[in-house]
């Protein structure tokens, strides 16, 4: 059984996405990346990201990740900010520690693509 199934599938993503997106929007380290974007499409992207991190069915590829973030000049600090918000979201939803570690490991696996390394 994947983490995605263990924590409740699509319903878990629905529960997490508003909390996660809200944290990202008020995080001074990264909020400026979201200022000019359409909130609905951004919300959909966060949902796709969480589905991927939870190990659910997704169409994410390393190439997409790279292309989407290529011109944003992202640093370790930005990546860590997103990861911290992800952990805080999962803690708020009382996701067990073991699962959180697995989810973060998936997110970290795309780090080089996101930071264009």
């Amino acid at each position: 059984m994947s983490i995605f199934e263990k924590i409740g599938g699509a319903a878990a993503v629905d529960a997490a996405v508003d909390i996660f997106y809200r944290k990202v929007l008020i995080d001074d380290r990264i909020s400026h990346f979201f200022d000019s974007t359409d909130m609905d499409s951004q919300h959909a992207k966060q949902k796709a990201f969480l589905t991927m991190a939870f190990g659910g069915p997704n169409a994410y590829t390393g190439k997409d990740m790279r292309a989407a973030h290529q011109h944003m000049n992202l640093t370790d600090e930005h990546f860590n900010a997103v990861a911290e918000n992800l952990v805080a979201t999962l803690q708020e939803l009382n996701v067990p520690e073991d699962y959180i570690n697995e989810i973060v490991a998936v997110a970290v696996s795309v780090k080089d693509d996101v930071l264009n390394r």
Partner: protein
Amino acid sequence: MTVLHFNGQEIAMLVGESVLDALLRNQHAVAFGCRAGVCQSCLMQGEAGGIPASAQDGLTAAQKKLGYFLSCRCIPEASSCLQVQSIQQQAARTWAQVLDITPLNAQVYRLRLRCELDYFPGQYVTLWRNETIARSYSIASVKAVDHCMELHIKRMQEGNFSRWACDELVAGDSLQLQGPMGKCFYAGPTEQPLLLAGLGTGLAPLYGIVRDALLQGHRAPIYLFTGASLAERCYLSAELAELARLNPQLHVKTIAQTGYSEWVQQGDIYQTLRDTLPNLQGFKVFLCGADSFVRKMKKQCFLAGASMADIAADAFLPFVTP
């Protein structure tokens, strides 16, 4: 190269160009309005398979099945070949008759129409002045109460449509209308608190939605925030105050940046909303008005706890000519 076949004619498309732009560039007289996928006046029909899904956003299931699409939103994949044709536009439109048109203030006019169309208050229709000029307006009426369709038209000094409508339309005139469209309307549940916020004629759909909710027996609190830059540009203020007096669950605030009156308070609509409702968790939110207002308010409401799924927004877009 992408090739467009239009009514039997072949057109070479430019990279990233929409079907509408390609046709206009080749001097085809095709109707269009907002160029943003909202008014649906550039509706066309194409062969199945070649139409990107994004060009069919907002269309009905039946329209999608027929291969209808919005040409302003249709940017075909590179090196493809697309077959499209104009449709009998009349089929998508219906006739309406002007009952009256009266000023609500110095800028905004109330147009009341008699037409057979079924709609939800808060949806919008596209009105046609002629074969090339079309504009979209939100529906302020509740059919069961008003027995007509009511629209609020802001008379723009250079408005190809609005100046004509406000200055020249008289009772008994007929005009063509398309729709209804949009998902900004009341659908319960009656126990969920509501927040409605709109600036300028953003009040039009909200005036329909709030009265529809009351008619359907909405029980939870309803907060309506409306306003304008100047106190004298606020409208329907006395009517809204009376509506709130008759319905204890309804709370109305009319806010002007400058000036005040018996029904209008001076202030900042964003700050007033924050002070009145610091926590929007569990609220259903309706936002209507200019794009800048809707964007800013949407973010504020989301950060105040409203779920994205519970925020319905209708941004009024300027209609631009190429």
